[in-house]
């Protein structure tokens, strides 16, 4: 009996061990990533595996990425797992990417919590790790040497909006409604300071649990305070419920700012979404230089920007990745990460460079929904529309 059990154990060990023997060939640039295909982030990045493979296809159609050391272009190959929107799973798969798939570089998972867990794999196994949609300052305060992030820190997420408010000087007071999750909370912390810098009076800041659906108490309070700006720092479902009830209860500030106001927001609210300001990385027709690549990748991947407004940030990440390898001229991981740190380039979303601790420079622009269309309203050199302030009140 014991022999049979031993045999069983060995079989299990072999079965577990078997897939680890595969090796990446030297004839491709091997990039590892996870995507939240299932779990609660799936609604935000579910189909993004297509985004990655589509870009790889586009690059490979032109022969791949030039690597000087080998004197030829190498094709890009992705290995992508589903992290189920779960930290432990994400960490597990990044460990796998590092030890079994032996990737050359890693693209980060979606969101700060997953990135916090996953980025340790890059650090421990010395593999360049590019965080994409993750901007919590916590990620960059740990002294990681193998980590860079594409986008700017969360607290600076809406700095261009506050710049605009300061320049215009019309609004005098603001009230914050904040969803108690990591990203909206980070954005709020920065915005609070930026609002004070813009000489606005902060009337109140309500930090509200993530699953809150009924806002009667908060709206009752806001009506009493009547701020100029109601600033909703939250994810989309939260903002939809808030705006809907604000309209039902006739809360009429001069301006609504909902940091995320993508296509779903607009569809679910209809006329209540008019004149709401939010943040966009990119809108059609923006004067940002050559943004053709965004259109190409999104079209090939069959992903629509208004539905997934953070998708352009991934395109920028791809460009950064490509440029870093081209500049390094080798797949040597130490040199690639050095070239990443020294990088300074023009991407589809403007200039990209990295701070000492690793976070990036790409940031969002304030955009207002006007007649159902997203108009970037600041700064003037890239704007596609004009800021309407105050918004016409609801009857």
């Amino acid at each position, binding site marked *: *009996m*014991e022999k049979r*059990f*031993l045999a069983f*154990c*060995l079989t*299990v*060990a072999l*079965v*577990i*061990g078997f897939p*680890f023997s595969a090796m990446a060939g030297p004839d491709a640039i091997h990039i590892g990533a996870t995507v939240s*295909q*299932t779990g609660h982030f799936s609604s935000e990045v579910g189909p993004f*595996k297509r985004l990655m493979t589509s870009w790889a296809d586009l690059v490979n159609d032109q022969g791949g990425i030039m690597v000087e050391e080998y004197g030829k272009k190498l094709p890009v190959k992705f290995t992508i*797992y*589903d992290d*189920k929107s*779960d*930290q*432990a799973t994400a*960490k*597990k798969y990044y*460990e*796998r990417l590092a*030890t*079994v798939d032996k990737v050359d570089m890693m693209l980060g998972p979606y969101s*700060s*919590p997953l990135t*916090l*867990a996953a980025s*340790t794999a890059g*650090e*421990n196994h010395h593999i360049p790790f590019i965080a994409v949609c993750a901007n*919590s300052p*916590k990620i960059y*305060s*740990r*002294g*990681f040497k193998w980590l860079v992030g594409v986008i700017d820190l969360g607290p600076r997420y809406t700095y261009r909006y506050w710049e605009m408010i300061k320049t215009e000087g019309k609004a005098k007071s603001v009230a914050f409604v904040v969803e*108690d*999750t*990591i990203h909206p*909370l*980070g954005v709020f912390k920065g915005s609070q300071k930026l609002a004070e810098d813009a000489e606005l009076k902060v009337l109140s800041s309500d930090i509200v*649990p*993530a699953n809150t659906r009924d806002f009667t108490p908060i709206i009752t309070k806001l009506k009493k305070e009547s701020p100029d700006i109601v600033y909703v720092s939250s994810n989309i479902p939260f903002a939809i419920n808030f705006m809907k009830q604000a309209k039902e209860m006739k809360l009429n500030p001069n301006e609504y700012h909902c940091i995320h106001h993508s296509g779903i927001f607009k569809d679910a609210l209809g006329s209540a979404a008019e004149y709401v300001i939010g943040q966009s990385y990119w809108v059609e027709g923006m004067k940002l230089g050559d943004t053709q690549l965004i259109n190409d990748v999104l079209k090939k991947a069959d992903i629509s920007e208004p539905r997934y407004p953070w998708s352009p940030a991934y395109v920028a990440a791809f460009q950064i990745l490509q440029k870093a390898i081209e500049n390094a001229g080798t797949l040597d991981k130490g040199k690639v990460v050095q070239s990443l740190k020294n990088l300074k380039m023009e991407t589809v979303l403007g200039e990209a460079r990295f701070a000492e601790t690793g976070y990036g420079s790409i940031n969002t622009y304030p955009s207002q929904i006007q007649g159902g269309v997203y108009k970037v309203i600041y700064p003037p050199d890239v704007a596609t529309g004009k800021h309407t302030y105050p918004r016409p009140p609801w009857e």
Partner: protein
Amino acid sequence: MVFYSVFVLLWIILAALPWLGFSYGVVWIFLLAVSFTLALSYDIVGGYMGYMNLGHSTFFGLGAYTTAILLNQGFNLFTSLLAAFLLAAFFAALISYPLFRLRGAYFALATFGLISLIEVLTVNLRDLTGGSGGISTPPGNHMLPAYYMVLGVAAATMVLSHSVARSKFGLGLFSIREDEEVAQSFGVPTSLYKGLALVISSVPASLVGGIYVWNMTYVSPESVFGLEIALSPIIMAMLGGTGVMIGPLVGAVFITLVQEFLWTKVPYFHLAMYGTVLVLLGLFMPGGIVRTRWVKPFIQRLGLGEAVEYFKNVDAERMS
């Protein structure tokens, strides 16, 4: 004894794993051992005593948070873990009074509510816990020591569970599961035993919670109080078979194997498949895998079956 020799053997193999080049296997076994320990410690209350404690992950979360907070205060790992399990055990003792006034579905419901309550508290006590953003602990590569520690805790939990099942205390727990009133009138100190069982089951859960966060270097309310971590150990225990020590092991290995080898092939419908398995389990196999016709004889011959079978061996020895 067959029982000990089999497991010592298995543990030697597992301990050798990192030195045989299975570095991903280490990550994999680490997570498996965490789930398994949770499932096994759940089973002391859920399987042996028959109180379905859907809030078992509360102890895991408490252990994780206590450890994270103390590590950030500069305490070493062992002090932090010690504090973690003492706190969890104290908490278990504290809540056992109101909780065990309830039985059956009410108990299950109240314990499920307990997780949400603790989660909200964790989110709201921002100064202590870092709020919804969670806390990062001092970074570092702790994979290997964490692996050995979890293996150790898992082994200790198995020994614990095994000796509980064979003890007077275990007999008392079984009788509570079967008929609490009769048990009480035969002198089983039911209130004491119920509280004790909850405290005992909280210790391994809080310890693996602490080791988990040390290795993960980051903890957020959702990662330790979420639905997944609450339900999957219970599902593992039930799939394998509750009330039998080998059950949670079979369940944990089965589910993690399926996740690893089946789900990487099929990108969608994982939860749907999971759900289907649960439904089939509930309808046709409430005893779990180890009680099915094909598996039971094998398990019994290894001497790993239920306590019921245990006495058969004893009898045979005595009477022959």
